[in-house]
């Protein structure tokens, strides 16, 4: 029972880390970035490179952030920005980009499954249960990520401009806010977050060119039911991620794999605003 509870909380934390960047980009740009899965994979390989270079595995996180930010910068400038006025085409373009990132990784690193070193190993005794220390550490990391994003949005000038663009882009432009710049920074940040999430999950799963795909599907569903609110996303991760864990351990992991998508579809059918208030 305790193990199940810990699984629920740690899974929610991991899902939150994976989905937060997607949520940020969706809020500002009103597009779902389907290259998010490719960027998660990129982060996984950043962790792998860190291992291969023999560096401290923790170094994989800033390395992934750098990889993600550079890739996001290029993607926004070259692919997404020319398609601002055509959001559906922009979404399709990011889908194609995800495939390109995956194939490029195959070309460079090969198709095989590889493993990155875990920054933390071993177990911790918690509530009378011996549990993976790394999974537990995901919880404070996810909370720090969430607080960091919230602080950036609510405590800085750029954050205020970003929230203004989310609420009413035309009005924000009329007040002198360069919404193109806000979109650019947001996309780079969202991409960096995706890659960091990719590096964070490598000790829990293997590194392969398609590792981001299942995470992308779940993150996409979680963002759809959360709207643009970080608090809603946290709630959605706990409820849907929790359901996934319970279905996986009590029934079958295969059913667990589609639980989030299935529940999200039902939630959106009965309550279109999902977990967002209002």
């Amino acid at each position, binding site marked *: 029972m305790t193990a199940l509870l810990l699984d629920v909380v740690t899974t929610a934390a991991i899902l939150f880390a994976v989905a937060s960047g997607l949520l940020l980009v969706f809020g500002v740009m009103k597009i779902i970035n389907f290259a998010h899965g490719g960027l998660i994979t990129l982060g996984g390989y950043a962790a792998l490179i860190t291992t291969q270079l023999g560096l401290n595995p923790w170094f994989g996180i800033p390395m992934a952030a750098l990889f993600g930010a550079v890739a996001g910068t290029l993607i926004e400038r070259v692919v997404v920005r020319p398609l601002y006025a055509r959001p559906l085409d922009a979404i399709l373009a990011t889908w194609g980009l995800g495939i390109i990132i995956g194939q490029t990784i195959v070309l460079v690193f090969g198709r095989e499954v590889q493993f990155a070193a875990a920054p933390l190993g071993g177990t911790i005794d918690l509530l009378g249960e011996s549990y993976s220390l790394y999974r537990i550490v995901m919880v404070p990391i996810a909370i720090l990520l969430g607080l960091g994003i919230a602080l950036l949005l609510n405590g800085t000038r750029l954050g*205020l401009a970003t929230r*203004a663009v989310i609420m009413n882009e035309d009005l924000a432009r009329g007040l*002198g806010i360069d919404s193109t710049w806000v979109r650019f920074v947001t996309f780079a940040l969202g991409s960096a977050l995706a890659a960091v999430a990719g590096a964070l999950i490598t000790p829990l799963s293997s590194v392969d060119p398609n590792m981001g795909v299942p995470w992308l599907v779940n993150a996409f569903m979680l963002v759809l039911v959360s709207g643009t609110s970080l608090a809603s996303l946290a709630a959605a991760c706990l409820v849907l991620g929790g359901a996934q864990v319970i279905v996986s351990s009590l029934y079958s992991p295969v059913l667990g794999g589609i639980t989030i998508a299935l529940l999200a579809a039902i939630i959106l059918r009965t309550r279109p605003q999902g977990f967002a208030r209002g």
Partner: protein
Amino acid sequence: MTPALHIDAISAGYGEAVVLREIALTVAPGEILAVLGKNGTGKSTLLKSIMGYLPKLAGRIAIGGADVTREAPHRIARRGVAYVAQEKSLFQDLSVEENIRLALASDRDWPKARAAVERSFPFLLERIRQRAGTLSGGEQKMLLMARSLAADPKLLLVDEITEGLQPSVIERLGGVLRAERGRSAAGILLVEQHIPFALAVADRFVVMDRGEIVDAGAAGAPGAAAEIARHLSL
């Protein structure tokens, strides 16, 4: 003196539909020009064109002597242009303070902006943390006006600020506009349907009909109100 705003034969519209036809007008620094006309004659479209929201089909717009015909809205705003749109012009979910800060080029200008708010609508300072959406209709219009003056604009574009307001609030807004004109050298373009308010506040007026300027005159001229009313009733 360089005009605050100079519009030279502008035509603009939405796609195929031409809404403005060869509009020409000039606003001097420290001058208030009222743009009057019935609904749907292109008054709001004129302000949107000046702000860069609409592409121009022909003509030229200069603000403070600089050509802004093809500039983006945020660049035009940064030239010291404050635009008060008719609808959805506040961030309802942001606080009074955040709404005002968004109009400033940098948070370093906040003390100056605060002083400007204190001068025009001091009650807002007591409600600085309140969400803009929880203010009454009249208070929201006063916040709009306060925000547009906070950055010390060189050109102020105001779209039907009096719509649906009580006479006492309208009078207060008029007083603030006149005081601002006397204090700074801002040029003000005032789109209005409320003729007595427009003539009391403005120096000159133009009348628009079907996207063209059909009449112009001094706001203080005897018979101006009757002349405008005749256009609006046609």
